[in-house]
């Protein structure tokens, strides 16, 4: 199933002539309400070569996840104040982790995200750009869902609404033109191993969500993929750490693979449910919540207590791995997210940068670890952003961005 570019047909567009708005755009799938009142729209869409579906009968090969409206979470009661996380950093809702997990669980499916704009909020084009990029950067597709005011404004050909629509169509067109990026491999510093279901569903999902918030770039490994590795003959080969936080001990094969990774020099971050850990206590300052053991060339960090708070575990993991190995560091980016992927044979890479504030940053810097010597920044409108300065650092590039919108793709090469 190709990814496609889906749009939820707005209720305000009663007349099939509104299909003209889609002409020349990447939108190729329509989700239309059931009922005779939409027959004319459905019929016209079919004639135009668009695929139409009812919301409750989406095509085979598509997995739909119920997502959040991405962005900085605002406090209830208005006043425009951002809600803070436990460290005071603005809390960001993102669907990236969920798309990636769904893609692992359903590797042959396209992943669509169903997330409606917040009610009673007037959204600017930048919010839609964020919604589109927050799905597409991670290999999914947001089901374009217009807020009522926008849909009505477009039907009435209001210039402001049409300008927002142009932002939307530019963004979906950009990702449709770069669909090969969705096939790139995830570059990570850690691997998260779980079955992500049953009693491990809540903690496993939250851990993925919060590791991303903590800036830890990770690969997702199901226990099956560890026991029967397909993507690599040696699991976790490029990683520095593996996180195992499931409520039951690993199987013998999973344990064997993970301990082999530790013996080669990796770090295992785990919980008491893992069972007895081999090795000897490590010298050095004790960690308040983890016992550290040395095993082979690597280390095992085992929590003293079963983890109750995935936020704490995610932040502990970031520190145990060490920011020394951060793959992406931002400055002046505000509330940020990033997804780092590598193309065929590791010759090129794309780092997707997301800025979740109401507008993009005006003087952000980003450091990307890796062997790259060249970087090109592109936005959905500009194939090569002018005024970008690239500094070579030891095993990294530092990129200085001029004012940019909420999404930037960095194409990296020369490694």
């Amino acid at each position, binding site marked *: 199933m190709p990814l496609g570019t889906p749009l939820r047909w707005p209720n305000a567009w009663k007349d099939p002539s509104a299909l003209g708005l889609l002409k020349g755009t990447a939108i190729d799938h329509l989700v239309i309400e059931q009922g005779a009142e939409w027959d004319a729209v459905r019929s016209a869409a079919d004639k135009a070569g668009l695929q139409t579906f009812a919301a409750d009968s989406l095509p085979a090969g598509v997995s739909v996840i119920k997502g959040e409206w991405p962005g900085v979470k605002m406090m209830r009661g208005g006043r425009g104040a951002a809600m803070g996380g436990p460290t005071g950093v603005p809390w960001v809702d993102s669907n990236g982790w969920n798309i990636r997990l769904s893609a692992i669980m359903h590797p042959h499916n396209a992943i669509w995200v169903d997330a409606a704009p917040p009610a009673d909020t007037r959204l600017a084009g930048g919010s839609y750009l964020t919604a589109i990029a927050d799905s597409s950067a991670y290999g999914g597709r947001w089901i374009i869902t217009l807020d009522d005011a926008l849909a009505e404004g477009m039907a009435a050909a209001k210039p402001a609404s049409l300008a927002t629509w142009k932002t939307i169509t530019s963004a979906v067109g950009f990702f449709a033109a770069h669909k090969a990026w969705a096939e790139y491999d995830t570059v990570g510093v850690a691997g998260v191993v779980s079955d992500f279901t049953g009693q491990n569903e809540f903690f496993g999902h939250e851990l993925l969500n919060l590791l991303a918030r903590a800036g830890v770039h990770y690969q997702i490994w199901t226990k099956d993929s560890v026991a029967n590795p397909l993507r690599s003959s040696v699991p976790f080969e490029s990683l520095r750490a593996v996180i195992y936080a499931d409520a039951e001990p690993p199987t013998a094969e999973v344990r064997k693979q993970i301990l082999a990774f530790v013996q080669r020099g990796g770090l295992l971050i785990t919980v008491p449910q893992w069972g007895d850990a081999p090795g000897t206590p490590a010298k050095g300052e004790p960690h308040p919540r983890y016992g550290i053991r040395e095993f082979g060339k690597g280390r095992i960090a085992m929590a003293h207590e079963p983890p109750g708070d995935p936020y704490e575990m995610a932040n502990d993991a970031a520190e145990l791995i060490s920011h*020394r190995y951060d793959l992406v560091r931002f400055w*002046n980016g*505000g509330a940020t997210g990033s997804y780092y992927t590598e193309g065929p044979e590791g010759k090129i890479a794309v780092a997707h940068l997301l800025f979740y504030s109401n507008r993009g940053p005006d*003087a952000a810097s980003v450091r990307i670890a890796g062997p790259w010597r060249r970087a090109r920044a592109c936005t959905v409108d500009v194939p090569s952003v002018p005024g970008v300065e690239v500094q070579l650092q030891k095993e990294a590039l530092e990129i200085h961005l001029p004012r940019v919108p909420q999404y930037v793709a960095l194409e990296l090469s020369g490694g």
Partner: protein
Amino acid sequence: MDRCQTRREWLKKTAAALPGAYLAASSVGRAAEAPTAPVAVARSKTYEPSELMPVMQKMFDQLGGLERLVKGKTVAIKINLTGSPTYRLGYLPLEDTHYTHPHVVAAAAHLMGKAGARRIRVLESPWSTAEPVEEYLLRANIEPRDILGAAPAVEFENTNFLGRAKKYSRMVVPYGGYMFPAFDLNHSYEDCDVFASIAKLKEHATAGITLAMKNCFGMTPCTIYGSGAGVDEPSLVPRGGRSPIHEGNRQPSKSAPPEKDPDSPREDTWRVPRTVVDLCAARPIHLAIIDGIKTMTGGEGPWIREDCKGVAPGVIMAGTNAVSTDAVAMAVMGFDPMADRGTPPFEECDSILKLAETAGLGTRDLKRIEVRGTAIAEARFDFAGMRERRRNGPRPPMGLRG
């Protein structure tokens, strides 16, 4: 250089010299009595160790040598890493604008090690986190190994919470305190023989300037003095900033001494300077080093709504009396260290230097301070002129910086 006193010796002497009514006595008389010590001033165009190390060695020699101060001692160094490590002034590295440069810290540690320091502990209370200082530095793109490897037995400690001790250290203000009679601080500020403050040469939005003394404001753990501090007992981890001290909107955790007068002004321009002086009396500074090689104008960090600029004054200073060292630094910035509230850079705040002098910590009177090395006039970088021009112009709009 004066022989280094232990903190207990200092407290004993000072407490005897400063009776409770001290602050009520004539400030003119006290200023004349306030101690003084030479201040070394030097030029260094860059942070390259090949240039910086001999410059700092010479400065310390001009003060009488580090050996007398640190040999066989545990040295604690308070550095300045104010604000979030993800916040830059434009594209400039944080250490070139508002963080103490790691090469200055490393050079100081190296020279202290060479002079026989037994243990060197680098301290800071990073913004809203209990993570190790090393990790905080890495997030700022600063390599902590440059400091850790500068001498034998160098280590970091995050002092924004309890840290490695079992309890906080109660540090008493010998003269009774302007704001606080005592502070509960991370053990590191008590468990040292020598205390050094390595600051950045900067203006400050609340306190006018931030130099060796104001750097010590960051000694206060936010588990007790922060907006997220526990009400009865300290919180386990620090959250938020020090608004309770700035604004007086709440008292520290009840386990710590409260401010002396809950009816005192709630203005930060009154409270912060007094708290700083109380801290510098409770934890005397034996060695003040001020990094003005590269810094910024307009405030203490890029979040200040001024037309802040990265600048390269190319100057570094050191002294064994923090008040006198700050006074020389102010003069290098083009300000009058005798300035009082209403005069730049203290247009809207009280002068830390005047309060410190009144408390008997040291003199700010340049006539009583011997400057060694580069003359002030040769080292001057005109922060004052830039401030005046800035203040006569429109305020810049806030950008989205992080």
